[in-house]
């Protein structure tokens, strides 16, 4: 009999490997899709169809000189990318990818799943704010303070938008929420919550059109201006993993997780999960090529004056409907 911790170790290694590979190839596909949308060929030199591009990028980053500005706080400067990456990777411990007769496809069923994920993503903000602060340089400091303000503002709308789902499902366990959607996916009764979730999650992961954190035209590169080589790469990986995490959460909370569409239960649940999360990631890329970047004051006003009240209203209406009809 294999002890449980050995199984958990193997599972963790497999999930991390799959997730990092997914990161590498979704990055390639983002570049390809953006290129096609702009009528360019995209990366096509390394390997057939550019398929080895992620490996080439990783090798390049590893051999780049690792610079630390003399004004930087050396310890925190080195710690910041580590914090970002651990938090971004850690969320995959909670996400269930599918379910079969053998059990949950993932690290297990945690009863406070969605709370743990929000806790980890909140800690991830530290990575960005510490990176900018410890660089000892002006642009990173500005970028990180901006991004911290943006991320905490939209985190409010994000946490409020999923409460409607929790009211309907009556549980915070992600597996429980997916089971509760066997009949009807929550995108239908929680359409407002879903739209708020999309907007807030794009802002939370610092993606276009909310990528004011990077804003290369005004802030050089934002909080990672001083980072080079693989340390810069770690922030990049963390940002991308956060995007994949958000796609997974949207799939689990609103799009029915691994529940099949049209009762097609012959197709395994994991395929449904990948298709739904993949569509969500494609939407992210589509947004990036379509919309210009917002102005900072509009971004903050929109978050506080529109998204937050609408999210609160949405959850109170949901609660009222459930209170009256539950029985």
């Amino acid at each position, binding site marked *: 009999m294999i002890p449980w911790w050995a199984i958990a170790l193997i599972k963790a290694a497999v999930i991390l490997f799959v997730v990092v590979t997914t990161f590498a190839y979704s990055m390639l596909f983002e570049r390809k899709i953006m290129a096609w949308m702009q009528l360019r060929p995209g990366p096509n030199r390394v390997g057939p169809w550019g398929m080895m591009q992620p490996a080439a990028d990783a090798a390049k980053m590893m051999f780049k000189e690792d610079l630390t500005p*003399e004004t930087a706080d050396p310890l925190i400067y080195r710690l910041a990318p580590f914090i970002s990456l651990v938090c971004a990777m850690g969320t995959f411990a909670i996400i269930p990818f599918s379910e079969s007769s053998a059990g949950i496809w993932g690290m297990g069923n945690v009863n406070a799943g969605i709370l743990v994920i929000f806790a980890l993503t909140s800690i991830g903000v530290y990575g960005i704010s510490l990176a900018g602060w410890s660089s000892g340089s002006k642009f990173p400091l500005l970028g990180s303070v901006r991004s911290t303000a943006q991320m*905490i503002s939209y985190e409010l709308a994000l946490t409020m938008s999923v409460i409607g789902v929790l009211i309907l499902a009556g549980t915070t366990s992600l597996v429980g929420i997916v089971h509760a959607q066997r009949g009807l996916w929550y995108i239908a009764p929680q359409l407002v919550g879903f739209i708020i979730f999309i907007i807030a999650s794009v802002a939370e992961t610092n993606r276009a059109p909310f990528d004011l954190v990077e804003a290369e035209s005004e802030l050089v590169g934002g909080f990672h201006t001083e980072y080079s080589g693989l340390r810069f790469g770690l922030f990049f990986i963390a940002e991308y993993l956060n995007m994949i995490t958000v796609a997974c959460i949207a799939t689990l909370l609103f799009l029915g997780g691994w529940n099949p569409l049209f009762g097609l239960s012959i197709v395994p649940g994991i395929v449904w999960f990948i298709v739904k999360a993949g569509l969500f990631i494609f939407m992210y890329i589509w947004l990036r090529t379509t919309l210009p970047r917002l102005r900072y*004051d509009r971004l903050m006003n929109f978050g506080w004056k529109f998204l937050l009240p609408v999210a609160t209203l949405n959850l109170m209406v949901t609660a009222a409907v459930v*209170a009256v009809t539950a029985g």
Partner: protein
Amino acid sequence: MNPYAPVGIFLAVAAIASAAFCIVPGLLARRRPNPTKSQAYECGVEPTSEVGGRFPIRFYLVAMLFVIFDVEAASFYPWAVQMRALRVYGLLEMIVFVVVLGIGYAYVWRKGGFQWR
């Protein structure tokens, strides 16, 4: 077995992997620092002033507002999960809570706390 134990193991593996990512380039990459390279980036000119001078107080305000509203969001969670059991009583309780909160929200709005200039 505690269901959080595998999560702890996963976090440990993630921490080891991230640490490896942080250490490997230090071993592989050549380092040839010189005074110009290790200067803080400032578009190629000599830094004109110290970092961390005056700073808009707005960011500080946002942080304070965030703490208030995040605590509020946290108190919604247990209520949301138990909504089916609490029914109309729970709804009325939460309406009182939201109204009190709404008064504070309206006050901050009137005072221009959300206005980003």
